[in-house]
């Protein structure tokens, strides 16, 4: 009886160890523990008053969740693209600049500095979604129908995107001081939780529903594992690949909209700089194979939070500016190696051998 229970327990642990989400979650826990030891008040969340006089939540945890929002949204789309096409979209940073530029072009008209919006915000948002999805479709066509390497296909927008973004606004850096523009990147009046967190949660719920009630997840996986056999089974692999890029386009639009709303302005050369690398990193940290196939969106999401947690932790420990990338790189290398599918498999085998020996 006890023997059976023991082996069940072991099975349980084995199963957890094997789970893809295990590594990013344990990384998150280690980071939390690290911060908690250094500063016991790290996780304190307080209710403060914003400069507009509304109650708002404050604290490290809120800051991390808040600033990770765009990356979380992007990592969802990036996971799908990775799974279906076995490659990554490196143009997301540039297309965020594009989407953000569209938002401000519509809200500011041709004024560089204005204190009122020239069109309803929903119009600006829809236009930015349309544009970002069009550029996503452009990438998708190149990858799915012209069979270009994803990284090569998206290199076009990676290089051209920020220039096009500048062109949309006639090379000016528009600035809209209407308070309504800032609601989506800061706080809605009267709501204490930062809006990006709410948007990210909403996004996750919608993604979960789509995955639950459509065959998208299954089809994406099938195409990623073997496009030819999925075609023989009646799936159109090109369409699926194309769709994942369009979906990523939508993610880019939402992320770009939040980014612009945070400061009500844009700087084409630095907005969302290097975010494509962080998004790909989130997918890798989540233990997803970057060559496509099986995937776990929730792991990527946790991966995205780990990255932001790491950034804030490094700020907290006042790592000198010049050494910051080096510290980040060390942690990232450890995590990526640990979560690589090959290493995980090896670990699982070791564990199996160990338990088998013990049983004997």
């Amino acid at each position, binding site marked *: 009886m006890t023997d059976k229970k023991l082996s069940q327990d072991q099975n349980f642990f084995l199963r957890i160890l094997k789970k893809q989400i295990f590594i990013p979650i344990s990384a998150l826990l280690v980071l939390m523990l690290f911060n908690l030891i250094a500063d016991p008040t790290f996780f304190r969340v307080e209710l403060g008053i914003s400069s507009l006089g509304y109650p708002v939540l404050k604290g490290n945890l809120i800051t991390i969740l808040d600033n990770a929002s765009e990356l979380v949204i992007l990592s969802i789309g990036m996971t799908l693209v990775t799974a279906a096409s076995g490659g990554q979209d490196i143009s997301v940073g540039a297309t965020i600049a594009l989407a953000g530029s569209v938002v401000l072009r519509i809200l500011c008209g041709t004024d560089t500095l204005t204190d009122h919006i020239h069109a309803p915000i929903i119009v600006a948002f829809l236009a930015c979604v349309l544009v970002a999805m069009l550029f996503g479709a452009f990438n998708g066509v190149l990858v799915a129908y012209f069979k270009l390497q994803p990284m090569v296909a998206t290199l076009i927008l990676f290089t051209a995107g920020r220039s096009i973004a500048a062109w949309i606004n006639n090379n000016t850096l528009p600035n809209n001081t209407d308070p309504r523009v800032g609601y989506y990147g800061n706080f809605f009046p009267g709501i204490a939780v930062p809006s990006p967190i709410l948007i990210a949660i909403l996004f996750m719920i919608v993604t979960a529903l789509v995955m639950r009630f459509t065959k998208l997840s299954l089809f994406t996986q099938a195409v990623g594992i073997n496009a030819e056999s999925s075609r023989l089974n009646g799936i159109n692999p090109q369409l699926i690949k194309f769709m994942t890029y369009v979906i990523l386009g939508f993610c880019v639009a939402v992320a770009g909209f939040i980014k612009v709303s945070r*400061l009500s302005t844009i700087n084409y050369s630095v907005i969302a700089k290097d975010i494509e690398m962080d998004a790909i990193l989130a997918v890798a940290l989540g233990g997803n194979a970057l060559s496509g196939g099986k995937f776990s969106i929730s792991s990527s999401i946790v991966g995205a939070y780990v990255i932001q947690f790491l950034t804030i932790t490094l700020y907290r420990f006042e790592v000198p500016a010049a050494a910051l990338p080096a510290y980040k790189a060390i942690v990232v290398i450890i995590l990526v190696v640990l979560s690589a599918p090959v290493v995980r498999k090896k670990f699982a085998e070791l564990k199996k051998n160990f338990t088998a020996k013990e049983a004997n």
Partner: protein
Amino acid sequence: MKIKKTLAILFSLSLGIAAFTGCSTAGSGSGAGSDAQNQPAENSASDGNAGGDNTSSGELIKVGIINNDPNESGYRNANDKDMKAMFTEENGYEAQFAYSLKNEEQIAAAQKYIQDEVDYLLISAAGTSGWDSVLKDAQSQGIKVILFDRTIDADESLYEASIVSDMAKEGETAVNWLASQNLDEYNIVHIQGVVGSSAQIGRTGALDAKAKSEANWNIVTQQTAEWSAETAQQIVQSVIDAGTKFNVIYAENDDMAKGAVAALDKANIKHGVGQDVIVMGFDCNMWALEELLKKNWNYDGQCNPFQASYIDEIIKNLENGKKPANKVVIMEEKGFDAETITQADVDQYGI
């Protein structure tokens, strides 16, 4: 099957071409690029016809201008507009423009201008090294070189003049202003630009020196936001979350100051004239000076992008056989205080 393949290749080729022409039209639409790409073509066409009737365009001074990409920043944008406004036919110039953030592309453009036999070569170099041989070529052809905005590592004899900002002096002006505020204690959040850029080195150096020499000056946080407003916002937010006390934000450009202020606003920390936290920025963007007018910020240091009039004067003098007295011309740069700034200042100095 074969036909399908060739068709696919044809399609991808045409798409590729479409994509690239797309890029170039985008570039030319970006205002700056337009002249860069169209003008050389026009000029070479007119050169072709020129052969005989050199007299009509002979009075214009031919200048080749090599600059960084105007999209880089508001500063560069203002700089480019200023150059474009000055070097026109009305002012007696025939100008060609080339833009790149890459040194080798700039050097290639310079070689092309030397072949075109321009009279003057104006260069804002992307990188400091690698210019020697091309400048020697220019010198042997009798082309005079004037550097603006950025210096290069080459012998002084290779160029006529160099018109630059003194970043260290910008930093000193700002730090002296801060010292004149006579606070009991200075707890400074210092947000740096890209580490190693001349603006960062100059603006950081002045503050570091002062903080070392004064007992009541503490830099509580020193971190790079790489000129990005979002990163600056995150840094200041984490400083606030940590409960660190500070009363000065010293941001090395306007964007980062704006990001820092966004974080202060979120935490309901009062900033500006007569408030809890002093906000300092650099570059004098139009919107930043308006923040000064509204007394939300305290100080903004100028980084003067208007070099065209200096260059014009030097060229006019050289044409009359007068060499500039000093090879290195340092531009006048101001620092604005929110208590004394006027609307006229905003209109004149805002970029």
